[in-house]
């Protein structure tokens, strides 16, 4: 898998964690478990900064733009469809041998796509 694609997936998961810990209901349950979600958010943001600084500027900018537009910027391809917009991908995209070896975007919605192993 292309290193930037790996990092973009990790960035997505970090953003989900940060967003989740901003929800009052999840926050409340984490506190009930004895965890410190407020402190964790601060640390996760620091980890996010470190990760972002190691991603190619082009892809990081695209990630930011698509997040603003759709709320999520990275999606898996399932059954030859982009799971962001559910559009079937062109044969040349989904049948490429090196499909995870470069960062690819859905030709329809522009989200960053990857194939799960």
């Amino acid at each position: 898998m292309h290193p930037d694609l790996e990092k973009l997936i990790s960035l997505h998961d970090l953003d989900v964690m940060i967003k989740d810990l901003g929800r009052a209901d999840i926050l409340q349950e984490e506190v009930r478990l004895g965890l410190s979600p407020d402190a964790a958010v601060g640390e996760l943001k620091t980890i996010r900064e470190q990760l972002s600084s190691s991603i190619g500027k082009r892809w990081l900018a695209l990630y930011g733009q698509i997040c603003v537009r759709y709320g999520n910027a990275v999606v898996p391809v399932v059954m030859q469809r982009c799971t962001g917009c559910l559009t079937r991908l062109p044969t040349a995209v989904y049948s490429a041998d090196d499909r995870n070896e470069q960062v690819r975007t859905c030709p329809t919605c522009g989200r960053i796509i990857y194939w799960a192993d």
Partner: protein
Amino acid sequence: MDRSCYCLWDLQSTDRSSTLSEMLSCVAQTGEHSRELLLRALEARELAGATIVAPGTAMPHCRSILVDDFVVVLGRSREGVSWPEERVRLIILFISPVKPSGPQEHMELIKHLAGKIGESGQEKLFKASSSKQLADMLGFQLIES
């Protein structure tokens, strides 16, 4: 929500990272590469604050696009695992999927586990005599491997 889980009854690893990796290795529905990225997500959460929820018990968790359904893995260690500030003997790992109902279901799973841990009590959980009994106590159906 489907409440099924895997269980590793006798974890071999003794440090946090190897333990998470060992526990993820029994998740049949994800490939090796996805497991590596899931490990990074779980480790990021641990680095942000260790998920010790009771003495001797850790609950590593995250939500990730790399799973399309809930993944729950229970792990029990005789020797204890360095977490690293505390030694833990029981590990409840879970990963929730990213989907529109994801945050709500993730919260419900945390709530469910908090309730079950409180109901059973730590000592009872440590004394479970089999994977099935441990899964039952936590309200999960054991996936036989």
